[in-house]
Protein backbone atom coordinates (compact mmCIF):
# COMPACT_ATOMS: atom_id res chain seq x y z
CA UNK A 1 0.00 0.00 0.00
CA UNK A 2 1.33 3.41 -0.89
CA UNK A 3 1.40 6.02 1.88
CA UNK A 4 2.03 9.64 0.96
CA UNK A 5 4.61 10.70 3.56
CA UNK A 6 3.98 14.41 2.93
CA UNK A 7 0.30 13.96 3.55
CA UNK A 8 0.93 12.09 6.79
CA UNK A 9 3.46 14.72 7.92
CA UNK A 10 0.97 17.51 7.23
CA UNK A 11 -1.44 15.87 9.67
CA UNK A 12 1.02 16.66 12.44
CA UNK A 13 1.55 20.29 11.43
CA UNK A 14 -0.17 23.34 12.86
CA UNK A 15 -3.46 24.02 11.14
CA UNK A 16 -5.79 26.47 12.78
CA UNK A 17 -8.71 25.03 10.83
CA UNK A 18 -7.92 21.49 11.85
CA UNK A 19 -7.18 21.29 15.58
CA UNK A 20 -7.16 17.89 17.28
CA UNK A 21 -10.79 17.67 18.31
CA UNK A 22 -11.58 14.81 20.68
CA UNK A 23 -14.17 13.40 18.31
CA UNK A 24 -11.84 13.31 15.28
CA UNK A 25 -10.55 9.94 14.17
CA UNK A 26 -6.96 11.24 14.06
CA UNK A 27 -7.13 12.20 17.73
CA UNK A 28 -8.69 8.87 18.69
CA UNK A 29 -5.98 7.04 16.78
CA UNK A 30 -3.14 8.97 18.47
CA UNK A 31 -4.78 8.79 21.88
CA UNK A 32 -5.17 5.02 21.66
CA UNK A 33 -1.49 4.83 20.76
CA UNK A 34 -0.62 6.98 23.78
CA UNK A 35 -2.75 4.78 26.07
CA UNK A 36 -1.02 1.67 24.75
CA UNK A 37 2.42 3.14 25.48
CA UNK A 38 1.27 4.28 28.94
CA UNK A 39 0.04 0.77 29.70
CA UNK A 40 3.48 -0.67 28.86
CA UNK A 41 5.65 1.99 30.54
CA UNK A 42 4.43 2.10 34.13
CA UNK A 43 7.13 4.45 35.43
CA UNK A 44 5.17 7.61 36.31
CA UNK A 45 8.09 9.94 35.59
CA UNK A 46 8.39 8.73 32.02
CA UNK A 47 4.62 8.72 31.72
CA UNK A 48 4.46 12.37 32.68
CA UNK A 49 7.13 13.26 30.09
CA UNK A 50 5.04 11.47 27.47
CA UNK A 51 1.95 13.39 28.62
CA UNK A 52 3.83 16.69 28.36
CA UNK A 53 5.07 15.77 24.87
CA UNK A 54 1.55 14.87 23.78
CA UNK A 55 0.14 18.04 25.37
CA UNK A 56 2.73 20.20 23.61
CA UNK A 57 1.87 18.55 20.29
CA UNK A 58 -1.87 18.92 20.96
CA UNK A 59 -1.51 22.64 21.65
CA UNK A 60 0.92 23.20 18.76
CA UNK A 61 -1.49 21.51 16.34
CA UNK A 62 -4.22 23.98 17.33
CA UNK A 63 -2.21 27.11 18.02
CA UNK A 64 1.16 26.85 16.26
CA UNK A 65 3.84 29.19 17.59
CA UNK A 66 1.71 30.14 20.58
CA UNK A 67 3.11 27.00 22.19
CA UNK A 68 6.01 29.34 23.07
CA UNK A 69 3.59 31.59 24.97
CA UNK A 70 2.34 28.60 26.94
CA UNK A 71 5.94 27.62 27.68
CA UNK A 72 6.74 31.20 28.71
CA UNK A 73 3.71 31.29 31.01
CA UNK A 74 4.90 28.00 32.49
CA UNK A 75 8.44 29.22 33.21
CA UNK A 76 7.32 32.63 34.54
CA UNK A 77 4.67 31.26 36.90
CA UNK A 78 6.93 28.46 38.10
CA UNK A 79 9.57 31.01 39.11
CA UNK A 80 7.03 33.47 40.56
CA UNK A 81 5.54 30.69 42.70
CA UNK A 82 8.99 30.00 44.13
CA UNK A 83 9.63 33.74 44.60
CA UNK A 84 6.46 34.11 46.67
CA UNK A 85 7.18 31.07 48.81
CA UNK A 86 10.89 31.44 49.46
CA UNK A 87 11.00 35.05 50.61
CA UNK A 88 10.25 35.68 54.26
CA UNK A 89 9.47 39.36 53.81
CA UNK A 90 5.78 40.13 53.24
CA UNK A 91 6.79 43.03 50.99
CA UNK A 92 8.78 40.81 48.63
CA UNK A 93 6.04 38.15 48.67
CA UNK A 94 3.56 40.84 47.65
CA UNK A 95 5.94 42.09 44.95
CA UNK A 96 6.12 38.64 43.36
CA UNK A 97 2.35 38.22 43.61
CA UNK A 98 1.82 41.57 41.93
CA UNK A 99 4.37 40.71 39.25
CA UNK A 100 2.48 37.47 38.58
CA UNK A 101 -0.88 39.26 38.36
CA UNK A 102 0.49 41.96 36.05
CA UNK A 103 2.24 39.47 33.74
CA UNK A 104 -0.67 37.04 33.50
CA UNK A 105 -3.41 39.61 33.17
CA UNK A 106 -1.19 41.70 30.88
CA UNK A 107 -0.87 38.79 28.44
CA UNK A 108 -4.58 37.98 28.70
CA UNK A 109 -5.66 41.59 28.22
CA UNK A 110 -3.27 42.18 25.32
CA UNK A 111 -4.40 39.17 23.30
CA UNK A 112 -8.04 39.27 24.21
CA UNK A 113 -9.11 42.83 24.84
CA UNK A 114 -6.79 45.25 22.98
CA UNK A 115 -9.08 45.58 19.97
CA UNK A 116 -12.15 45.86 22.18
CA UNK A 117 -10.58 48.77 24.03
CA UNK A 118 -9.66 50.39 20.71
CA UNK A 119 -13.28 49.95 19.60
CA UNK A 120 -14.55 51.57 22.82
CA UNK A 121 -12.06 54.42 22.44
CA UNK A 122 -13.07 54.99 18.81
CA UNK A 123 -16.81 55.02 19.51
CA UNK A 124 -16.72 56.93 22.79
CA UNK A 125 -14.17 59.58 21.87
CA UNK A 126 -14.54 59.58 18.11
CA UNK A 127 -11.04 58.20 17.77
CA UNK A 128 -9.78 56.59 14.59
CA UNK A 129 -7.25 54.03 15.70
CA UNK A 130 -7.08 50.98 13.43
CA UNK A 131 -7.64 47.58 14.98
CA UNK A 132 -4.38 45.74 15.72
CA UNK A 133 -3.55 42.53 13.99
CA UNK A 134 -3.82 40.24 17.02
CA UNK A 135 -4.74 36.57 16.96
CA UNK A 136 -6.09 35.22 20.21
CA UNK A 137 -4.27 32.05 21.31
CA UNK A 138 -6.72 29.20 21.92
CA UNK A 139 -7.44 28.33 25.52
CA UNK A 140 -5.52 31.36 26.84
CA UNK A 141 -8.29 32.29 29.31
CA UNK A 142 -8.15 28.81 30.78
CA UNK A 143 -4.43 28.34 31.24
CA UNK A 144 -3.82 31.89 32.43
CA UNK A 145 -6.52 31.37 35.09
CA UNK A 146 -4.87 28.10 36.09
CA UNK A 147 -1.52 29.86 36.42
CA UNK A 148 -3.10 32.64 38.49
CA UNK A 149 -4.79 30.15 40.79
CA UNK A 150 -1.39 28.48 41.33
CA UNK A 151 0.32 31.68 42.47
CA UNK A 152 -2.69 32.88 44.50
CA UNK A 153 -2.80 29.57 46.37
CA UNK A 154 0.91 29.78 47.16
CA UNK A 155 0.43 33.34 48.43
CA UNK A 156 -2.56 32.23 50.52
CA UNK A 157 -0.46 29.35 51.89
CA UNK A 158 -2.83 26.69 50.54
CA UNK A 159 0.11 24.68 49.23
CA UNK A 160 3.83 24.89 48.56
CA UNK A 161 5.20 25.57 45.07
CA UNK A 162 5.88 22.54 42.88
CA UNK A 163 9.55 21.52 42.92
CA UNK A 164 9.59 19.98 39.46
CA UNK A 165 9.14 22.38 36.55
CA UNK A 166 7.95 19.52 34.38
CA UNK A 167 5.19 18.55 36.78
CA UNK A 168 4.04 22.16 36.98
CA UNK A 169 4.11 22.45 33.19
CA UNK A 170 2.05 19.28 32.91
CA UNK A 171 -0.54 20.88 35.22
CA UNK A 172 -0.65 23.98 33.02
CA UNK A 173 -0.60 22.29 29.63
CA UNK A 174 -2.51 19.03 30.32
CA UNK A 175 -4.10 18.48 26.92
CA UNK A 176 -7.63 17.37 27.87
CA UNK A 177 -8.12 20.66 29.74
CA UNK A 178 -5.93 23.07 27.76
CA UNK A 179 -8.57 24.41 25.36
CA UNK A 180 -11.61 24.68 27.62
CA UNK A 181 -10.91 23.57 31.16
CA UNK A 182 -11.86 22.42 33.73
CA UNK A 183 -9.73 25.03 35.51
CA UNK A 184 -8.38 22.65 38.16
CA UNK A 185 -6.47 23.93 41.17
CA UNK A 186 -2.82 22.88 41.27
CA UNK A 187 -3.34 21.56 44.81
CA UNK A 188 -5.83 19.02 43.46
CA UNK A 189 -4.02 18.13 40.23
CA UNK A 190 -0.33 17.93 41.12
CA UNK A 191 -0.56 15.17 43.77
CA UNK A 192 -2.17 12.96 41.13
CA UNK A 193 1.02 13.00 39.06
CA UNK A 194 2.67 10.96 41.84
CA UNK A 195 -0.48 9.12 42.94
CA UNK A 196 -2.56 8.46 39.85
CA UNK A 197 -6.14 7.33 39.92
CA UNK A 198 -6.03 3.51 40.00
CA UNK A 199 -6.65 2.04 36.57
CA UNK A 200 -9.50 -0.22 37.66
CA UNK A 201 -12.55 -1.48 35.85
CA UNK A 202 -14.59 1.17 37.63
CA UNK A 203 -12.30 3.98 36.38
CA UNK A 204 -12.43 2.67 32.82
CA UNK A 205 -16.21 2.25 32.98
CA UNK A 206 -16.70 5.79 34.27
CA UNK A 207 -14.31 7.21 31.66
CA UNK A 208 -15.98 5.36 28.78
CA UNK A 209 -19.37 6.49 30.08
CA UNK A 210 -18.27 10.14 30.22
CA UNK A 211 -16.63 10.07 26.79
CA UNK A 212 -19.67 8.42 25.18
CA UNK A 213 -22.07 10.80 26.92
CA UNK A 214 -19.91 13.79 25.96
CA UNK A 215 -19.80 12.74 22.31
CA UNK A 216 -23.57 12.40 22.15
CA UNK A 217 -24.21 15.66 24.01
CA UNK A 218 -21.82 17.67 21.86
CA UNK A 219 -22.02 16.12 18.41
CA UNK A 220 -25.53 14.82 18.37
CA UNK A 221 -27.59 17.26 20.42
CA UNK A 222 -25.63 20.54 20.51
CA UNK A 223 -24.25 20.58 16.97
CA UNK A 224 -27.38 19.24 15.36
CA UNK A 225 -29.85 21.66 16.90
CA UNK A 226 -27.38 24.49 16.41
CA UNK A 227 -26.80 24.06 12.68
CA UNK A 228 -30.34 23.07 11.85
CA UNK A 229 -32.38 25.43 13.94
CA UNK A 230 -30.84 27.78 16.52
CA UNK A 231 -28.35 29.36 14.14
CA UNK A 232 -30.99 30.03 11.50
CA UNK A 233 -33.31 31.79 13.93
CA UNK A 234 -30.60 33.85 15.63
CA UNK A 235 -29.18 34.88 12.23
CA UNK A 236 -32.46 36.44 11.18
CA UNK A 237 -34.93 36.47 14.07
CA UNK A 238 -37.32 38.78 12.25
CA UNK A 239 -38.06 36.05 9.71
CA UNK A 240 -39.45 33.75 12.40
CA UNK A 241 -42.52 33.93 14.61
CA UNK A 242 -42.34 34.47 18.37
CA UNK A 243 -42.96 30.83 19.13
CA UNK A 244 -39.99 29.83 16.95
CA UNK A 245 -37.82 32.51 18.54
CA UNK A 246 -38.77 31.23 21.99
CA UNK A 247 -37.98 27.66 20.94
CA UNK A 248 -34.64 28.86 19.56
CA UNK A 249 -33.90 30.44 22.96
CA UNK A 250 -34.74 27.13 24.66
CA UNK A 251 -32.70 25.41 21.94
CA UNK A 252 -29.66 27.59 22.54
CA UNK A 253 -29.96 27.12 26.31
CA UNK A 254 -29.79 23.36 25.78
CA UNK A 255 -27.16 23.69 23.05
CA UNK A 256 -24.64 25.67 25.08
CA UNK A 257 -25.07 23.27 28.00
CA UNK A 258 -24.66 20.15 25.84
CA UNK A 259 -21.79 21.70 23.90
CA UNK A 260 -19.77 22.82 26.89
CA UNK A 261 -20.60 20.07 29.36
CA UNK A 262 -20.25 17.48 26.59
CA UNK A 263 -16.74 18.68 25.80
CA UNK A 264 -15.90 18.73 29.52
CA UNK A 265 -17.30 15.21 29.99
CA UNK A 266 -14.96 14.01 27.24
CA UNK A 267 -12.02 15.93 28.76
CA UNK A 268 -12.66 14.45 32.22
CA UNK A 269 -13.10 10.95 30.78
CA UNK A 270 -9.90 11.21 28.74
CA UNK A 271 -8.05 12.53 31.81
CA UNK A 272 -9.29 9.58 33.90
CA UNK A 273 -7.84 7.07 31.45
CA UNK A 274 -4.44 8.66 32.15
CA UNK A 275 -4.85 8.61 35.91
CA UNK A 276 -6.22 12.11 36.57
CA UNK A 277 -9.53 13.00 38.15
CA UNK A 278 -10.22 16.58 37.15
CA UNK A 279 -12.94 18.52 38.92
CA UNK A 280 -16.58 18.19 37.89
CA UNK A 281 -17.70 21.18 35.90
CA UNK A 282 -21.50 20.78 35.72
CA UNK A 283 -24.21 19.50 38.01
CA UNK A 284 -27.60 19.65 36.30
CA UNK A 285 -27.54 23.47 36.01
CA UNK A 286 -31.16 23.88 34.89
CA UNK A 287 -32.41 22.21 38.05
CA UNK A 288 -31.16 25.30 39.92
CA UNK A 289 -33.67 26.90 42.30
CA UNK A 290 -32.04 30.35 42.07
CA UNK A 291 -29.46 32.11 39.91
CA UNK A 292 -26.97 31.77 42.78
CA UNK A 293 -27.70 28.04 42.80
CA UNK A 294 -27.17 28.01 39.00
CA UNK A 295 -23.58 29.16 39.57
CA UNK A 296 -23.08 26.26 41.99
CA UNK A 297 -24.02 23.95 39.12
CA UNK A 298 -22.69 25.67 35.95
CA UNK A 299 -19.01 25.83 34.97
CA UNK A 300 -18.05 24.94 38.54
CA UNK A 301 -14.33 25.29 38.03
CA UNK A 302 -14.73 28.89 36.80
CA UNK A 303 -17.27 29.84 39.47
CA UNK A 304 -15.02 28.37 42.18
CA UNK A 305 -12.10 30.39 40.74
CA UNK A 306 -14.14 33.59 40.70
CA UNK A 307 -15.46 32.93 44.18
CA UNK A 308 -12.04 32.23 45.70
CA UNK A 309 -9.96 34.91 44.06
CA UNK A 310 -12.39 37.70 43.21
CA UNK A 311 -15.72 37.50 45.05
CA UNK A 312 -14.35 36.59 48.49
CA UNK A 313 -11.56 39.20 48.62
CA UNK A 314 -13.96 41.97 47.53
CA UNK A 315 -16.68 40.73 49.88
CA UNK A 316 -14.37 40.43 52.88
CA UNK A 317 -12.85 43.84 52.16
CA UNK A 318 -16.31 45.42 52.06
CA UNK A 319 -17.81 43.45 54.95
CA UNK A 320 -18.52 46.58 57.02
CA UNK A 321 -21.19 47.41 54.42
CA UNK A 322 -22.96 44.11 55.13
CA UNK A 323 -25.56 43.33 52.44
CA UNK A 324 -24.24 46.15 50.24
CA UNK A 325 -20.78 44.60 50.46
CA UNK A 326 -22.24 41.38 49.09
CA UNK A 327 -24.08 43.26 46.36
CA UNK A 328 -20.90 45.09 45.31
CA UNK A 329 -18.91 41.84 45.28
CA UNK A 330 -21.57 40.15 43.12
CA UNK A 331 -21.60 43.12 40.75
CA UNK A 332 -17.83 43.21 40.28
CA UNK A 333 -17.51 39.42 40.01
CA UNK A 334 -20.19 38.88 37.39
CA UNK A 335 -19.39 41.91 35.26
CA UNK A 336 -15.84 40.58 35.00
CA UNK A 337 -17.19 37.04 34.53
CA UNK A 338 -19.07 38.36 31.50
CA UNK A 339 -15.95 40.04 30.17
CA UNK A 340 -13.94 36.84 30.70
CA UNK A 341 -16.26 35.12 28.21
CA UNK A 342 -15.29 37.50 25.46
CA UNK A 343 -14.38 41.02 24.46
CA UNK A 344 -17.79 42.31 23.52
CA UNK A 345 -20.71 44.20 25.01
CA UNK A 346 -22.94 41.12 24.67
CA UNK A 347 -20.95 39.20 27.24
CA UNK A 348 -20.83 42.16 29.60
CA UNK A 349 -24.62 42.53 29.37
CA UNK A 350 -24.97 38.80 30.04
CA UNK A 351 -22.75 39.06 33.13
CA UNK A 352 -24.54 42.19 34.32
CA UNK A 353 -27.92 40.47 34.00
CA UNK A 354 -26.70 37.60 36.17
CA UNK A 355 -25.39 40.12 38.71
CA UNK A 356 -28.70 42.00 38.74
CA UNK A 357 -30.72 38.80 39.20
CA UNK A 358 -28.60 37.79 42.18
CA UNK A 359 -28.58 41.25 43.76
CA UNK A 360 -32.36 41.48 43.37
CA UNK A 361 -32.73 38.07 45.00
CA UNK A 362 -30.41 39.16 47.84
CA UNK A 363 -32.52 42.21 48.69
CA UNK A 364 -35.90 40.51 48.30
CA UNK A 365 -35.15 37.30 50.18
CA UNK A 366 -37.24 38.20 53.24
CA UNK A 367 -40.18 39.47 51.17
CA UNK A 368 -40.15 36.35 49.00
CA UNK A 369 -39.98 34.10 52.06
CA UNK A 370 -42.92 35.91 53.64
CA UNK A 371 -44.94 35.80 50.41
CA UNK A 372 -44.36 32.04 50.09
CA UNK A 373 -45.40 31.54 53.73
CA UNK A 374 -48.50 33.73 53.24
CA UNK A 375 -49.52 31.79 50.13
CA UNK A 376 -48.87 28.56 52.05
CA UNK A 377 -46.67 27.20 49.25
CA UNK A 378 -43.35 27.27 51.14
CA UNK A 379 -41.57 23.94 50.89
CA UNK A 380 -44.22 22.44 48.62
CA UNK A 381 -43.63 20.72 45.32
CA UNK A 382 -45.25 23.68 43.58
CA UNK A 383 -42.85 26.12 45.25
CA UNK A 384 -39.82 24.14 44.04
CA UNK A 385 -41.28 23.93 40.56
CA UNK A 386 -41.92 27.68 40.53
CA UNK A 387 -38.36 28.44 41.62
CA UNK A 388 -36.85 26.15 38.97
CA UNK A 389 -39.20 27.52 36.29
CA UNK A 390 -38.42 31.17 37.05
CA UNK A 391 -34.66 30.55 37.40
CA UNK A 392 -34.58 28.63 34.11
CA UNK A 393 -36.28 31.50 32.29
CA UNK A 394 -34.01 34.14 33.79
CA UNK A 395 -30.98 32.11 32.67
CA UNK A 396 -32.49 31.56 29.20
CA UNK A 397 -33.28 35.28 28.93
CA UNK A 398 -29.66 36.15 29.66
CA UNK A 399 -28.42 33.64 27.05
CA UNK A 400 -30.25 35.65 24.34
CA UNK A 401 -27.69 38.44 24.78
CA UNK A 402 -24.84 35.92 24.97
CA UNK A 403 -25.84 34.29 21.69
CA UNK A 404 -27.16 37.14 19.54
CA UNK A 405 -24.63 38.69 17.15
CA UNK A 406 -25.62 42.17 18.26
CA UNK A 407 -27.81 43.95 20.77
CA UNK A 408 -30.29 44.76 17.98
CA UNK A 409 -30.63 41.07 17.11
CA UNK A 410 -31.31 40.24 20.76
CA UNK A 411 -33.97 42.96 20.80
CA UNK A 412 -35.59 41.49 17.70
CA UNK A 413 -35.72 38.04 19.30
CA UNK A 414 -37.53 39.52 22.31
CA UNK A 415 -39.79 41.69 20.16
CA UNK A 416 -40.88 38.70 18.09
CA UNK A 417 -41.65 36.69 21.24
CA UNK A 418 -43.70 39.49 22.79
CA UNK A 419 -45.51 40.98 19.78
CA UNK A 420 -45.67 38.17 17.21
CA UNK A 421 -45.97 34.97 19.19
CA UNK A 422 -48.32 33.01 16.86
CA UNK A 423 -48.64 29.81 18.93
CA UNK A 424 -50.54 28.13 16.08
CA UNK A 425 -47.20 27.81 14.26
CA UNK A 426 -46.00 25.24 16.82
CA UNK A 427 -47.32 22.15 14.95
CA UNK A 428 -45.59 23.45 11.81
CA UNK A 429 -42.35 23.79 13.73
CA UNK A 430 -42.63 20.20 14.94
CA UNK A 431 -43.32 19.13 11.37
CA UNK A 432 -40.53 21.14 9.75
CA UNK A 433 -37.88 20.54 12.41
CA UNK A 434 -38.90 17.09 13.61
CA UNK A 435 -35.40 15.76 14.49
CA UNK A 436 -34.61 19.06 16.27
CA UNK A 437 -37.84 18.80 18.23
CA UNK A 438 -37.08 15.20 19.24
CA UNK A 439 -33.47 15.97 20.22
CA UNK A 440 -34.51 19.00 22.27
CA UNK A 441 -37.19 16.97 24.02
CA UNK A 442 -34.79 14.13 24.78
CA UNK A 443 -32.08 16.56 25.94
CA UNK A 444 -34.36 18.37 28.38
CA UNK A 445 -36.07 15.18 29.51
CA UNK A 446 -32.76 13.53 30.43
CA UNK A 447 -31.62 16.70 32.16
CA UNK A 448 -34.70 16.90 34.36
CA UNK A 449 -34.89 13.20 35.23
CA UNK A 450 -33.61 12.24 38.72
CA UNK A 451 -29.81 12.40 38.76
CA UNK A 452 -29.56 8.89 40.26
CA UNK A 453 -30.28 7.61 36.75
CA UNK A 454 -26.77 8.73 35.81
CA UNK A 455 -25.36 6.65 38.66
CA UNK A 456 -27.44 3.69 37.52
CA UNK A 457 -26.07 4.08 33.98
CA UNK A 458 -22.53 4.23 35.38
CA UNK A 459 -22.96 1.11 37.48
CA UNK A 460 -24.40 -0.63 34.43
CA UNK A 461 -21.19 0.28 32.58
CA UNK A 462 -19.16 -1.20 35.43
CA UNK A 463 -21.02 -4.48 35.30
CA UNK A 464 -20.55 -5.14 31.59
CA UNK A 465 -17.31 -6.43 30.08
CA UNK A 466 -14.61 -4.30 28.44
CA UNK A 467 -15.87 -5.55 25.08
CA UNK A 468 -19.36 -4.29 25.95
CA UNK A 469 -17.95 -0.91 26.94
CA UNK A 470 -16.00 -0.74 23.68
CA UNK A 471 -19.21 -1.45 21.74
CA UNK A 472 -21.02 1.38 23.55
CA UNK A 473 -18.15 3.79 22.88
CA UNK A 474 -17.99 2.73 19.23
CA UNK A 475 -21.75 3.22 18.97
CA UNK A 476 -21.48 6.72 20.45
CA UNK A 477 -18.69 7.55 17.97
CA UNK A 478 -20.73 6.16 15.09
CA UNK A 479 -23.88 8.08 16.06
CA UNK A 480 -21.95 11.34 16.43
CA UNK A 481 -20.30 10.77 13.07
CA UNK A 482 -23.74 10.26 11.50
CA UNK A 483 -25.04 13.46 13.11
CA UNK A 484 -22.07 15.35 11.80
CA UNK A 485 -22.93 15.63 8.16
CA UNK A 486 -20.98 18.83 7.83
CA UNK A 487 -17.39 19.32 9.03
CA UNK A 488 -16.82 19.36 12.78
CA UNK A 489 -18.14 22.53 14.30
CA UNK A 490 -15.56 24.37 16.37
CA UNK A 491 -16.31 24.20 20.05
CA UNK A 492 -18.14 27.29 21.34
CA UNK A 493 -15.92 27.78 24.36
CA UNK A 494 -12.60 27.71 22.46
CA UNK A 495 -12.89 31.37 21.63
CA UNK A 496 -13.14 32.49 25.25
Amino acid at each position, binding site marked *: MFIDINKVASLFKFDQYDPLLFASSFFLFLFLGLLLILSVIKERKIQSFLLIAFSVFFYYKASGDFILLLLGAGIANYLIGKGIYRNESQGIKRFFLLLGIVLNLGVLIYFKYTNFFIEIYNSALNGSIDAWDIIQPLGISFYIFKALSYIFDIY*LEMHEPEESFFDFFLYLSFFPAILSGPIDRAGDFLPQIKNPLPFTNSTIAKAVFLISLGLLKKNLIADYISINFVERVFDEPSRFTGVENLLAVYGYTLQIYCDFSGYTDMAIGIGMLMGFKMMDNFNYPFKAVSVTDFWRRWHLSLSAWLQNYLFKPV*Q*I*GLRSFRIWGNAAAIFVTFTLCGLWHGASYNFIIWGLLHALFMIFSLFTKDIRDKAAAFLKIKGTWFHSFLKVFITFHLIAFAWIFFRAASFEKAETVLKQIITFFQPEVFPQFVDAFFPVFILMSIGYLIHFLPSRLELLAQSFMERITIAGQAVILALAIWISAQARFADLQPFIYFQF
Partner: protein
Amino acid sequence: MITPEFKASILKELRLDDYEIKDETLANQIPGWDSINHINVISAIEKDFSVRFKSIEILKCKNIGDLQNLLTSKLAKK
Protein backbone atom coordinates in the same frame (compact mmCIF):
# COMPACT_ATOMS: atom_id res chain seq x y z
CA MET B 1 -9.71 22.91 69.45
CA ILE B 2 -12.98 24.75 68.84
CA THR B 3 -13.90 26.68 72.01
CA PRO B 4 -17.53 26.68 73.22
CA GLU B 5 -17.70 30.51 72.96
CA PHE B 6 -16.49 30.49 69.36
CA LYS B 7 -18.94 27.74 68.46
CA ALA B 8 -21.78 29.59 70.22
CA SER B 9 -21.01 32.74 68.23
CA ILE B 10 -21.25 30.84 64.93
CA LEU B 11 -24.41 28.94 65.90
CA LYS B 12 -26.11 32.13 67.07
CA GLU B 13 -25.42 33.97 63.80
CA LEU B 14 -26.61 31.01 61.72
CA ARG B 15 -29.61 30.47 64.01
CA LEU B 16 -28.69 26.85 64.61
CA ASP B 17 -29.59 24.96 67.80
CA ASP B 18 -26.55 22.76 67.56
CA TYR B 19 -24.08 21.50 64.99
CA GLU B 20 -20.90 19.53 65.55
CA ILE B 21 -17.97 21.74 64.55
CA LYS B 22 -14.45 20.28 64.44
CA ASP B 23 -11.13 21.79 63.43
CA GLU B 24 -11.31 20.26 59.99
CA THR B 25 -14.94 21.26 59.36
CA LEU B 26 -15.27 23.43 56.25
CA ALA B 27 -17.41 26.58 56.41
CA ASN B 28 -19.72 25.43 53.64
CA GLN B 29 -20.45 22.18 55.50
CA ILE B 30 -22.23 24.11 58.26
CA PRO B 31 -25.91 24.67 57.38
CA GLY B 32 -26.55 28.26 56.34
CA TRP B 33 -22.86 29.22 56.01
CA ASP B 34 -22.86 29.89 52.28
CA SER B 35 -20.84 32.33 50.19
CA ILE B 36 -23.33 35.15 50.77
CA ASN B 37 -23.70 34.57 54.53
CA HIS B 38 -19.91 34.36 54.90
CA ILE B 39 -19.50 38.06 55.74
CA ASN B 40 -22.30 37.96 58.31
CA VAL B 41 -20.63 35.12 60.21
CA ILE B 42 -17.21 36.77 60.08
CA SER B 43 -18.65 40.14 61.17
CA ALA B 44 -20.57 38.45 64.02
CA ILE B 45 -17.39 36.78 65.33
CA GLU B 46 -15.49 40.07 65.12
CA LYS B 47 -18.27 41.81 67.04
CA ASP B 48 -18.74 39.12 69.69
CA PHE B 49 -15.03 38.99 70.52
CA SER B 50 -14.25 42.65 69.77
CA VAL B 51 -11.47 41.80 67.31
CA ARG B 52 -10.75 42.86 63.73
CA PHE B 53 -9.26 40.43 61.25
CA LYS B 54 -7.24 41.49 58.22
CA SER B 55 -8.80 40.40 54.91
CA ILE B 56 -5.75 38.32 54.01
CA GLU B 57 -5.90 36.52 57.38
CA ILE B 58 -9.47 35.40 56.66
CA LEU B 59 -8.64 34.39 53.10
CA LYS B 60 -5.82 32.17 54.37
CA CYS B 61 -8.19 30.12 56.57
CA LYS B 62 -8.77 26.68 55.07
CA ASN B 63 -11.22 25.43 57.67
CA ILE B 64 -12.93 26.37 60.94
CA GLY B 65 -9.88 25.24 62.92
CA ASP B 66 -7.77 27.89 61.12
CA LEU B 67 -10.36 30.55 61.94
CA GLN B 68 -10.34 29.45 65.60
CA ASN B 69 -6.52 29.72 65.68
CA LEU B 70 -6.69 33.16 64.11
CA LEU B 71 -9.21 34.28 66.72
CA THR B 72 -7.13 32.79 69.57
CA SER B 73 -4.01 34.60 68.35
CA LYS B 74 -5.94 37.91 68.13
CA LEU B 75 -7.35 37.45 71.65
CA ALA B 76 -3.88 36.65 73.02
CA LYS B 77 -2.58 39.96 71.63
CA LYS B 78 -5.32 41.98 73.31
